[in-house]
């Protein structure tokens, strides 16, 4: 198993590439969710403001 983790002498290169990929995918998901929540919040605030005017 240690041999497999070492990836010859290229362990640092291989694992950092895969790690960064995971991080970027996670950022894509989190960014999308946060943006959706903030838009939803804005929409709700706007509707509440409009309807309390009436």
């Amino acid at each position, binding site marked *: 198993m240690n041999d*497999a983790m070492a*990836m010859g002498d290229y362990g640092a290169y291989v694992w950092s590439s*895969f790690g960064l990929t995971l991080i970027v995918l996670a950022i894509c998901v989190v960014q999308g969710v946060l943006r959706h929540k903030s*838009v939803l919040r804005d929409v709700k605030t*706007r509707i509440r403001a409009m309807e*309390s005017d009436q």
Partner: protein
Amino acid sequence: MIPWFAIPGIALVAYGTYAGLFLAPADYQQGDAFRIIYVHVPAAYLSMMTYMVMAISAGIGLIWRIKLSHAVSAGAAPLGAWFTFLALITGSIWGRPMWGTWWEWGDPRLTSQLLMLFIYFGYMALRAAIDDPAKADKASGILAMVGAVNIPIIHFSVEWWSSLHQGATLVREGGPAMPVEMLYPLLANILGFTFIFGALLLGRVRTEVLFRERRKRWVRNLVFPEGGDA
């Protein structure tokens, strides 16, 4: 609909990544460093495919004035920028042990890919700078379409000019230059990343449509169902 893309995507990437890291044999020239291909190629492929999605939907939106089309385009841009960034950074990490350098200015493949990252940034900045959605759609859509000339340049750069970057491995005359134990995990990861992209794009488009239609009656009914109090 998002899980329909996310679940097969995650399954394929789990298989492709595991098999690519532990089951595929080491490359006879590059040793284990070649395994970076399993993230680099899907990222690079998607960076260009996302651009095509962005440019084509912008074009459709401009010609037939379809607002949803512009929402797709706007939703694709940040994802494309992230994939481009990922392709550049994993390529750089791969280049260090193989070419002896992190980056080579003047290399056609590397610089045209970097240019695409800047076009994505330009597209997003332009959209963010214009308040009127119709004007933002038009200006950014034209930018996306003009920037599409860069796509064939990226793709053929390794053939047209001399480049540090290796030539095509998969799409070439005589079929893929890889044994199946290396090839299948790569194809699984490419397909899996594409599914994950599909899921991410659906989510982005949903948000974008909600934002654009925030003044409409149906959005009110969606957010506060059955005419409930706000």
